[in-house]
């Protein structure tokens, strides 16, 4: 019998239906994966299960927990169910925890809210919970605050909160999206183990098909507020029916075209870094002390040849973004040499510096934050032409902007519109157009597809591969996502704790990694094909 059952549940904001006729059911000990792109309504469905829809949202249809209708239930009943019977794990552990309450207090609060416990019993159970989720079970740890923990530790605390009262139903909304791959692997393993041991029903929500395939017994695919297809995991992936599911699967496996002609590497590098060093002052612990230093980039050497596509992979905080900013000339290195076209950009001033800067431009991660909302697309794309001020006239400026827009597949009319009128993928095209407008030899792309949905990501990767072949631009491609780097680069560097621990031709590094960190990284990445193959072996 189903423990949680959605029946024709629809969710409205005003008159717009954001979720339509959702029908799902969960049984004890089962994990149901809900997969979809942003805006598909999967998070709203999760909130509906707890009856915690944002204010002003309405619902119709039915939601039953062990036969009890929840969509009509009043707050008193729901308060008893939430946390005790149905619990939730959120995406962003930093903001999900109260910053000014110790994690111990937050766990104790849950326990004391649902159970009559003495102080001593409460503390004992809280300590056991910390141990359960793999944290240090000490009083000192209980007194810590969210800002003193790492991302993975925070998510463990959030899981501890959710399982504190041994709920029957657990809902996890993108629980590992904000985490690094190695941490993601640990958190997924922990979740899987807890759910299995406690025979909980888990509603697991993700945009990542590989993660879903790994976690779920059954999968439902959601698009624009509707479930287009659902079934047992292996069966669904092997005999996909619906066009959208197929498209999603294709996009997540998508590889942009390989180089049409092989790359010839000349003698003189386009960019060369030699033992680059960059560190930051950390906040002082005692104000009379010298501020401790964090070395972000440690003795990094790197060569990029003309037209070469080089990938830089690593987890958050490994120094890859600092390295990118140094290459771009936004941050001065403290030691080491950098030369671009045989010149050190930091030794040049004025016109000559601008001249050099023309050859190296950037595409950033966030398609929402990378434009001034008050400038038109035309003005935004034209901005780097400031580097050519006095050398080109207005007509040439216009021509260049329109040419850049066309080469990224946007219509010329886009120039008159404002960035907020475009979708995420279109905005990333605008960002690429802006990088192209000075006709650079090197583009530094810092996580250019990380914020995008899979289908859009595939299109942008194709575009980048096309630019690589057509315009002969070299790329420094920075990403935490190994599959992206694998797809589009010729050469890859793996970075860990400020150092490059392994480098080599992309093919070689991925097929035969030598450094233990690279192996760890590669093994932590959920791989759809491998997971499905393993499932086929056991038959479900």
């Amino acid at each position, binding site marked *: 019998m189903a423990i949680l059952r959605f029946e024709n549940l629809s969710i409205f904001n005003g008159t717009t239906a954001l979720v339509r006729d959702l029908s799902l059911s969960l049984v004890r000990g089962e994990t149901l994966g809900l997969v979809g792109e942003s805006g598909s309504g999967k998070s709203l469905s999760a909130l509906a299960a*707890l009856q*915690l829809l944002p204010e002003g949202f309405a619902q119709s249809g039915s939601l039953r927990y062990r036969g009890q209708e929840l969509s009509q239930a009043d*707050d*008193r009943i729901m*308060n*008893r*169910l*939430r*946390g*005790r019977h149905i*619990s*939730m794990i*959120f995406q*962003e552990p930093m*903001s*999900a*925890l*109260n*910053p*000014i*309450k*110790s994690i111990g207090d937050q766990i104790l*609060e*849950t326990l004391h*809210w*649902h159970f009559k416990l003495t102080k001593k019993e409460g503390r004992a159970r809280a300590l056991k919970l910390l141990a359960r989720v793999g944290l240090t079970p000490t009083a000192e740890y209980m007194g810590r*605050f969210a*800002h003193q923990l790492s991302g993975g530790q925070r998510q463990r605390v*959030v899981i501890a*909160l*959710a399982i*504190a*009262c041994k709920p029957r139903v657990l809902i996890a909304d993108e629980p590992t999206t904000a985490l690094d791959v190695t941490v993601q692997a640990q958190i997924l393993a922990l979740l899987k183990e807890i759910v299995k041991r406690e025979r909980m029903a888990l509603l697991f929500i993700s945009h990542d098909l590989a993660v879903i395939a790994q976690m779920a017994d059954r999968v439902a695919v959601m698009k624009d507020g509707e479930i287009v297809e659902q079934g047992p995991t292996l069966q669904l992936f092997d005999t996909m029916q619906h066009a959208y599911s197929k498209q999603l699967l294709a996009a997540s496996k998508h590889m942009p075209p390989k180089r049409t002609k092989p790359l010839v590497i000349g003698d003189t590098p386009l960019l060369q870094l030699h033992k680059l060093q960059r560190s930051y*002052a950390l*906040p*002082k*612990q*005692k*104000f009379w002390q010298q*501020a401790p230093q964090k070395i972000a980039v440690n003795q990094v050497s790197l060569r990029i040849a003309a037209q070469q596509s080089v990938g830089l992979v690593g987890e958050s905080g490994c120094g890859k973004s600092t390295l990118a900013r140094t290459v771009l000339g936004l941050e001065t290195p403290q030691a080491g040499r950098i030369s671009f076209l045989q010149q050190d950009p930091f030794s040049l001033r004025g016109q000559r510096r601008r001249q050099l800067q023309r050859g190296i431009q950037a595409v950033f991660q966030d398609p929402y934050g990378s434009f001034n909302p008050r400038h038109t697309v035309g003005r935004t794309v034209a901005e780097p032409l400031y580097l050519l001020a006095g050398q080109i006239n207005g007509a040439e400026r216009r021509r260049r902007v329109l040419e850049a827009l066309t080469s990224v597949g946007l219509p010329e009319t886009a120039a008159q519109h404002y960035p907020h009128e475009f979708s995420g993928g279109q905005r990333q095209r605008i960002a690429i157009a802006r990088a192209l407008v000075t006709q650079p030899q090197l583009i530094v792309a810092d996580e250019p597809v990380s914020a995008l949905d899979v289908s859009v990501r595939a299109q942008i990767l194709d575009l980048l591969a096309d630019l690589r072949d057509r315009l002969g631009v070299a790329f420094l491609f920075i990403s935490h996502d190994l599959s992206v780097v694998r797809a589009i680069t010729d050469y890859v560097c793996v970075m860990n704790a400020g150092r490059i621990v392994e480098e080599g031709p992309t093919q070689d590094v991925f097929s035969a990694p030598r450094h233990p960190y690279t192996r760890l990284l590669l093994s932590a990445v959920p791989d759809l094909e491998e997971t499905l193959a393993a499932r086929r072996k056991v038959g479900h």
Partner: protein
Amino acid sequence: MLQFALWRIAGLWWTLFAASLVIFIVIEVLPGDPAQVMLGMSGDAQSLGALREQLGLNAPVAQRYLTWATGMLHGDFGVSYTYSVPVADLLRERLTVSLPLAAIALALATVLGLPLGVLAARFRGRLSEAGLMAGLQVGVALPNFWLALLLIYVFSISLRWLPAGGFAGWEKGLWAGLSSLLLPAVALALPQAAILARIMRSALLDVMHEDYIRTARAKGLSRQATLWRHGVRNAMIPVLTVLGLQFSFLIAGAVIIESVFYLPGLGRLVFQAISQRDLITVKSTVMLLVTATVLVAFFVDLAYAAIDPRLRKAPR
């Protein structure tokens, strides 16, 4: 926490030093000759010279500042020119009025303002909220001295419940003293309460949009429990900053309100000292008021750090 306190104490001394320097420069350096200012038109050469001698104006500026500043550290605020008594005695006497007035007003403002703010946030979107918000808007726009005039008109002139002004003194009992401070305190507190309520409301509404509020609800906490345990507590952080600033306005307001009610407090003292051109008294009284403001800001900062663990570190 200790680091933070030490750091703040250093900042406190810096502010006091800079403030004393500003006061000294404005009073003693800007006008050219303070003795001339104090005597006004009536000063003849002889009394001008005598006064210069008394004020120590013949010494170099730096030395004059040091004498004044170190004197204050020892409790020596100079001798009032008009009253011919030590300013320290005047201040002590006036503090018995000003300190209770400020304390009552601050307490009233907090006790009224914060709950009203929570209420307004609770009833968001309902008609009662609209009414409350309209009331608060008017409260914020009220000049306290005009409110004081209205209160005098209603409670002293029409109803004759409370005295219209003056201070009976604490010797005649607690009530006699309190009754003369009640109307001034209300006049001071009401506009401040309205400001506090508005800030509490918006801070609370901001906090209630945070993810951890959703976590608390998902844990099963009721709306009410979430509001108090996670909402109000976290909203106190921005409210506290404002509370510290409010004291600065309260002191300013007290100067005016004491004039309306003829209360013999610090504000009235400094105001009278101006009209009598008693620069010695002005200088030291303003310094005392500034010190009070800075001290309150200091304690608010400590409270701030006690609530917010993220701040318990020394800044870079």
